């Protein structure tokens, strides 16, 4: 299934057997999302709380 990334409108490929709570990430902007609701082929995402490794200096 394809779903629009809430952050950048990119196309996120959600596996057909995806389950609630599964984490998917947008191939473009890299933002990670949690699968919030699945109704047939309609999927809703919400931002996943994730702490990126800071390449800080």
């Amino acid at each position: 299934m394809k779903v629009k990334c809430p952050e950048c409108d990119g196309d996120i490929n959600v596996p057909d057997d995806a389950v609630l709570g599964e984490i998917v990430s947008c191939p473009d902007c890299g933002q990670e999302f949690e699968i919030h609701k699945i109704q047939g082929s309609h999927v809703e995402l919400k931002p996943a709380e994730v702490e990126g490794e800071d390449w800080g200096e």
Partner: protein
Amino acid sequence: MAHLIEAGIIGATGYTGLSLLEVLVRHPNIELKFATTRRGDLAGEYIYREHPNLLGLTELQFSLFDLGNESLKDANDRVLRLIGDSDVVFLAVPSGASANIVKEIRRLGTRIIDTSADFRLKDPDAYRRFYEREHPCPELLKEFVYGLPELHREDIRKAKYVACPGCNSTAMILAGYPLTKIQGLGNFRIVYDVMTGSSEAGAELSRSSHHAERTGVVRPYSLKEHRHLAEVRQELGMEPSRVCATMFAVGMVRGVECIGHVFPDQPIGEKELWRAFRSAYGEEPFIRIRARKVPGPGSLPDPKFVRGSNYCDVGFFVDEVCGRICVLSALDNLLKGDVGNAVQSMNLMFGLDEGTRLRDLVPSYLYE
């Protein structure tokens, strides 16, 4: 179009000439017929004498060619015949010299791909201002197509003469171009900081490129009216006052990193930037978009990820606190910033797949 293209290089001893050779010796459709030099000591020598990395890759020998030197009439005529017999000639000589050669070889009918700045600017006044001399043949300017496939693909396909962009200009143009497609931005102004490697200074010796003095610098070497700016303004269609840039020589040999700051009148969101960058570059074979919000390797453009390839990585982010949007780009100044555009244009001019040979140049990460 003939499967095998006969080509030659005028000025094969400089860094552009060398980079052209490194690409063309393994280009499946190219047969290199000649590579010229003005140096008597190299005339007749194997290419790999001057470029040892090419040992085993070509048996070509340097041909002497210097139109400015009357005493070399025979040598010059021999090369002029070679040019006439070839399908395309790449010019890799400094500005000024290039225009004189073009004036001379036009009558031969061979396609010309010029890597100098002589035919990039449509406006001869801009050329005079930035290069401080009259353009030798302003009437030819309109016959050259600006050799940036991402912006002029169809014109390049039909072109007989192509003028390849400067390396810094390629980076600034490709970073800023999507912004010109965003209606909401209006008459924005963009200020660039461009960080460049030492190979940009070319093969000519100079104190500023002397290793002991070039290492460990962050040297602002062009403060404002850099000659590449005229190209950026021309290609982005923006008046001079809306595009400014400062260049820094930083610690690397190959590579350009460019950042452009814009303060739009009203806020522009990430979504709009993604739309603009996707519509500008979504189908491009050599542009990759890096604009990941999560910091980490590869989240934004960095020459480390493109070095040795024809890629130009572009990216952006929104700084809400200051109402700033930034666009970035990174490329290899000898490839996408120079001979990459030349070969990409050549492929287009001869109806080949645009990525021929160039797709095989895989960016090498651990490549200083």
